[in-house]
């Protein structure tokens, strides 16, 4: 990014304010800055909700009448993984847009966290492979282990991250994800796609509504300076 710092143009505004106006400006500026620097916008959750409903729903449509269960159709899996890739791309886009121009300790810390979470997920997959290899199982077992196991692992890893940063609202979101995956495992290899799709969609819609509610309107002029 290029910054051209030229001579000042015109006299800067040195006007003073009434205390109430200053309090309003302080609160408003901090609320705007937090919104601008936070990538977790409602539209990101809405995209995730649509991805969950359509992705899981298409796979469910391809397996719901299978007796015995043989696994999702290749076409539905292509769409499913394509939508997951799209979801990841939207998060990366939102993150880069919100965090552009920021440098320093937190950027490095987030990179380290991403590596640590990747390692934790890789270890979890080794455990899943070991479980799957321990004996011969049905196709339904492998699909349930892969899908519900991944969701539970992601929820557990994210809960740990939220606890470290004391983000309890986010942590409260990860517990229902694990519960939905647990119910999905009980629902079996056909029903789990529907349970996860509808469950995650509703959860993400609720999260989007909560984020929109938190971002709406002008904050009351409460005076608080610390980040």
């Amino acid at each position, binding site marked *: *990014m290029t910054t051209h*710092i030229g001579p000042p143009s015109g006299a800067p505004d*040195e006007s003073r*304010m009434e205390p109430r106006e200053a*309090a309003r400006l302080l609160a408003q500026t*901090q609320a705007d*800055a937090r919104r601008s620097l936070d990538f977790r916008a409602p539209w990101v959750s809405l995209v995730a909700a649509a991805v969950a409903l359509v992705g899981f729903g298409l796979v469910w449509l391809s397996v719901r009448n299978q007796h015995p269960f043989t696994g999702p159709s290749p076409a539905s899996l292509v769409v499913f993984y394509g939508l997951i890739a799209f979801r990841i791309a939207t998060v990366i886009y939102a993150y880069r847009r919100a965090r552009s121009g920021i440098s320093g300790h937190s950027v490095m810390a987030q990179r380290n966290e991403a590596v640590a979470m990747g390692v934790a997920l890789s270890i979890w997959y080794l455990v899943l492979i070991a479980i799957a290899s321990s004996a011969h199982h049905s196709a339904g077992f492998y699909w349930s282990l892969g899908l519900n196991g991944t969701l539970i692992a992601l929820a557990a890893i994210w809960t740990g991250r939220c606890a470290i940063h004391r983000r309890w609202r986010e942590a409260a979101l990860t517990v229902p994800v694990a519960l939905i995956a647990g119910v999905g495992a009980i629902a079996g290899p056909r029903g789990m796609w529907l349970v996860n799709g509808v469950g995650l969609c509703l959860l993400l819609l609720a999260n989007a509504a909560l984020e929109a509610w938190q971002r709406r309107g002008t904050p009351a002029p409460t005076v608080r300076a610390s980040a």
Partner: protein
Amino acid sequence: MTAEALDPLIHVPARLQIMAALATLPAGDQLSFKRLQDMLELTPGNLITHLRKLEEAGYLATTKTGSGPASRTSIALTHDGRHALDVYATTLRGLLNGV
């Protein structure tokens, strides 16, 4: 207590906005000049003037990396700057509560 008790360096709309925006970053983080300008919608000249005053007071630190057209200026609140904003906010709260 009167409005005179408020830090006169911060008690100016543009400088209060600069301090408030930078205070939302965690300690140790910096924001680029361009991003700060976009967030506050100030002209470059106006922003530079206010930044210089705050920097002279030790409230913020600027770092310039690169040279020529690829140069980039980053800005961060110093420890003294955070403390000054905390004191400002406390004084403001006191004024609003009629202390």
